Every structure is written in structure tokens, then in C-alpha cells.
């Protein structure tokens, strides 16, 4: 906060605003999330455990978790590479390309799913040729990963690009003048600057992937044990009048996301400390 640096006591207005914001976040996020947990375990922990370990629920959770983690990791690297290309290379039409990166957030994900399904689906030219090679994308697990990569593309790119653009060219020049090769320059100048952003961008895309529904429901096929993800399973439970099962499985997803966030914070602090020391 900037208040202490001004060496002034926060004004009354500021205090009200500050507590107002805290209240806002608590009401907007914390209360509904706690409510969800409460609702999920309202039948007791035994029932909760039975619900989340039912074979279909378990397989849906597992599918969402591994595809989410895979997408988070892929995004961390591919997103950083994309940001690098956008910032560092004089690609013609760069501003258009940069805008294109944001588009997945602007279109309804249902539409994104439909588009991907018709593009890679068995009736399209692409789908037909893939079928010859016995590669299944749509209505199979690769389709899930593809859709998740599409809808989470901007997270890492948007987190890393401004940092890359903001790095003082003098630092890079200094590294080169001191005899560092391109890889060492990248490692010593760029990695420390962008690493925390790349990781948190990756975690954010993972979080988004865990909850993704619109695109998945049209592209995955939604067959239990094969292509049914946790959000689609949850939707089905709500629709069939089993909101407690839905809440229980949601609570598991949420805890998983929270744990990963905590893990990422730790990783950031550690690498930050190591890089600072080294």
C-alpha cells in the first residue's frame, strides 16, 4: 500500500473504502465457496467420501485433473514461446496476431467447441485424413486437451509479454558484452524476470481448464469412463437432481486448484530466492 509511504494516517474515506473492498471480496468469493463446501458435506463425511469415490465421479475427476495439469504445463512453455515471438520478432501484422491471442476469451466457449468439433470432426476434410491415420481428436481425449489449450491460450502470453517488453535492453547487452552465449543470456536475464509470471499464468490456465464446460461438452463426447470430464459430470448431477454430489465433486476440484496455487507460490518463492542468491 502507498499510504504508509506518505507518512499519513489513512483518512476515514480510505478506511471505509478499504473495508468495503475486503467485504466485497469476501461476499463475492469466499462466502459462496464456503457455502459450496458446506453444501457438499452436509450429508456427512461418509456420504461425501462415497460420492467422490464412486467410479464414474473418480474417473471424471482424474480426467479433468490430468488434462488440466497437462494443459497448464504446455501453456507455461508454449505461452512463453508465443509471448517471446510476439515481443521480440518483427512479425508482419504483429498487432493483429497479438489481438488474435486474446480472442479465445471473447467468444463463448460453446462456440469455440463447436468450431473445433467441425474443424477436426469426422466429417471434415481434416478429420477424414486424420481418420486414415487412425488418429482420433474430436470425441476423444486429444479433443479435450485441444479445446482446453484453445480457451486458455491468453493466460501465459498476457502474463509474460509485458514483462519481456519491459526488460531493459542494457541488461541483455551487458550479458552479451560479458561473453554470455544466447542460452546463458536467456537464462540469466530473461528467466528470472518472467519465471514467476509464466508459472502463475500456467496455474491460472490450469484453474480455468479444471472448470471448463462449454467447449468440452460439445467436443469430448461425454461418455462415462472415457471422455466425461468433471464439470460435465457435475452438470449431469445437477440436472438429474443430485446437487450434493455436484457440490462434493466441485469441492474436490476446488481443493485441487487451491493446493496447486499454494504449490506454485512456494515454487515461485524458492526459485525467486535461488535466482536472487545465484
Amino acid at each position: 500500500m502507498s499510504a504508509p509511504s506518505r507518512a499519513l494516517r489513512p483518512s476515514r474515506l480510505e478506511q471505509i473504502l478499504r473495508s468495503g473492498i475486503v467485504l466485497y471480496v469476501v461476499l463475492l468469493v469466499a462466502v459462496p465457496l464456503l457455502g459450496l463446501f458446506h453444501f457438499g458435506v452436509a450429508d456427512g463425511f461418509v456420504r461425501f467420501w462415497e460420492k467422490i469415490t464412486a467410479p464414474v465421479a473418480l474417473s471424471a475427476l482424474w480426467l479433468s485433473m490430468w488434462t488440466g495439469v497437462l494443459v497448464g504445463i504446455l501453456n507455461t512453455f508454449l505461452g512463453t514461446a508465443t509471448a517471446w515471438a510476439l515481443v521480440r520478432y518483427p512479425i508482419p501484422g504483429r498487432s493483429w496476431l497479438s489481438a488474435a491471442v486474446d480472442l479465445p476469451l471473447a467468444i463463448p466457449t460453446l462456440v469455440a467447441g463447436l468450431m473445433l468439433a467441425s474443424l477436426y470432426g469426422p466429417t471434415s476434410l481434416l478429420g477424414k485424413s486424420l481418420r486414415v491415420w487412425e488418429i482420433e481428436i474430436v470425441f476423444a481425449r486429444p479433443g479435450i486437451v485441444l479445446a482446453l489449450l484453445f480457451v486458455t491460450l491468453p493466460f501465459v502470453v498476457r502474463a509474460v509479454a509485458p514483462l519481456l517488453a519491459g526488460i531493459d535492453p542494457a541488461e541483455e547487452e551487458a550479458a552479451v558484452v560479458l561473453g554470455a552465449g544466447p542460452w546463458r543470456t536467456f537464462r540469466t536475464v530473461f528467466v528470472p524476470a518472467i519465471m514467476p509470471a509464466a508459472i502463475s499464468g500456467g496455474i491460472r490456465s490450469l484453474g480455468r481448464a479444471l472448470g471448463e464446460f462449454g467447449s468440452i461438452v460439445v467436443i469430448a463426447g461425454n461418455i462415462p469412463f472415457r471422455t466425461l470430464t468433471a464439470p460435465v459430470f457435475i452438470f449431469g448431477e445437477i440436472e438429474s437432481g443430485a446437487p450434493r454430489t455436484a457440490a462434493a465433486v466441485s469441492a474436490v476440484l476446488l481443493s485441487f486448484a487451491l493446493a496447486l496455487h499454494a504449490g506454485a507460490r512456494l515454487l515461485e518463492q524458492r526459485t525467486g530466492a535461488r535466482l536472487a542468491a545465484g
Partner: protein
Amino acid sequence: MAWIGAFSRFKWPTVIVVALMACTGCKRETEGSAAKTPALTLGVYTTPREVYGRSILPAFRRHWHERSGRNVVFRESYLGSGAQARAIIAGFEADVALLSLEPDIEAIRDADLIRHDWKAGVHGGMVTRSVVVIGVREGNPKNIRTWQDLARPDVEVLTPNVRTSGGAMWNVLAIYGAAMRGQAGTPRGDRDAAIGLLASILKNVKIMDRGARDSMLTFERGIGDAVITYENEILVGRAEGKRYDYVVPSSTILIENPVAIIDAYVDRHGTRELAQALVEFLWTPEAQRFYAQHGLRPVIGSVASEVQAQFASVEDLFTIRDLGGWPEAQRLVFAEGGVYDRAIAGSREGSP
């Protein structure tokens, strides 16, 4: 104070305009309901959207005007049958519910919103009928004739998710019922064999869409060799010029779609007379002919014989009562660890 900066970047005029628009919007809404023209709110499932919106409700409006000299406006909501029932229970004040399945109406009754015996009338509260059929590609290239053909390893099948779609429940009941009656290549009364057949068919299912209509749209996009669906979905599609054929299995289930007046809400709105008139209108030959035009089988005998040629006859047509009624079917087939769960678990074995 970074957040102040963030706020100032916000376009306040935009916010104000949006807020004003929202306000005028809600004002108009309340004015509408307070106006003289009585309004009837309908909670309907998705499939019959066209028949109500384009044919039956306009006809009823004319009919009501002739009879009472008054106008009526409709507020229609179309949602999946289960979702519609939950919306009504949660406080969506529909005067009349037109749903796909009896259990959805029963759920509204159990919430104490329907307080009369809605099944008491001549037609047991049912306004339309249909049957479960198999949609196939033009010319039926995979030569699909029976339920057991859907279990062949070279056939890709579409059917919606039973957790979200009433249509999917009818589909499962059609296959299970036919098998239990010894009409689908399995011994009569052999439950394990029936579950086995269902499992083999589910194994061929590539996509479980949310509802019957979505499933049909997937089929129309060229995916799958066969789609299990309502006969009326197929008839409407073909009438619109869609190029696919269909097969009526020799044994299938009769689908019956209920209507009920929701006592709690008509009493609150003072619309009982109007709601009653609408529901009675649905059983007139005029309305029943509209249903037939949209591929739904009429429930009244005179119209049924008029339009007989439109609908394929079914050798062994059974109803939900042959399966012990809805509560029994739900307990046996769709409850945890029931027939459907066992079939899904069976479909998993040997799948990639």
C-alpha cells in the same frame, strides 16, 4: 492505490447507460404484468417449441378472444424437462407446465405446488405421444433394423445423457423394455442379458449430448450411423427437408408427455380460468391436429385415426406401465447401482 487507477479507467458513462437500460428493462416488465391483458406463463420442454409457438398458442389466442372477447399474452419458457421442473420448483411461476416425463410433473407436485389429481382426466394428464425410433443415414447403408443391430461393433450410435435428458431415459427404457419382453434377441425376462445388450449398445455410443435436440443436431452434422430419438424429432427434420431415414423397431416404448396446471401459481396470479381453458384446448381436435402436423402422435382417438397413415405402426408397443410405472422404472433402471449404472460399467470393459 492501484485499484483507484483501475476504477478511473473504467468508463463511467458506459456503466450509467447500462444501468439505465437495465432499469427501463425491468420497469417495462412490471408494467407488462400490471397491464390489463392477462398473461399466462408456460414452462415447456424443448422439443415442442415450434408446435406451441407457431400453431397452438396463436390458435388458442383466437379461440379465447372469440369466447371471452379478451386478449391473452403468453410468456413461454423452453428448457429441458428436468431443468424446467426444477426452475418451477425453485420459484419460476409458470401457470401451466408442459413437460416430457411424468416424474418431472410429480416432482412439482411433491413440492406442493400442484394440489389436484393431475392424472384424473380422460387422457391421464397426457397431451401427446410419440415412440422411440432409430434415425439412420439415407438408404440405411448399415442395414440397421433392430435394437440388437445397434450393438454391432461397426455401428456408431448417438443417444443423449440420461442425467440431463428425458429423451435419453425414454431411449434406455425402450431398449431395456424390448429386451425384457424377449423382442430384442435376448430371452424374455432375462435381466442380465438385457443389461448386456444395453452395455453393448452404450459401448458404441460416441457422444452423449445434453438433450434430444442436441443429439439430433450432432447426427445432422454427419456424425454417427444411428441416433436413438423421438419419432417426432425425425419427422420434423424430414419435413424440413433433412435427408435421413428412420427405423421403427418391432418393439418400442410409447412416450407420453404430460400437462398440469400449477395450483399455487395460478391462484397467486388469478389465472386459473385461463389456464384451465388452455389445457382443455390442448385436447380439442384442432390442437391435436397441430401436434400431428409436428410429428407428435395425438392422444384423442378421432384425430389418431385421421392421421394414422402418417405414423408407422409398431408390432409390440409397450408403455411405462408395462415396466411397472415410473417410480418402479426409476428405482430399477436409473437409481444408483441400477440397470443403467450396470450397463455403463459393462460398456467400459474392453473399451480403449
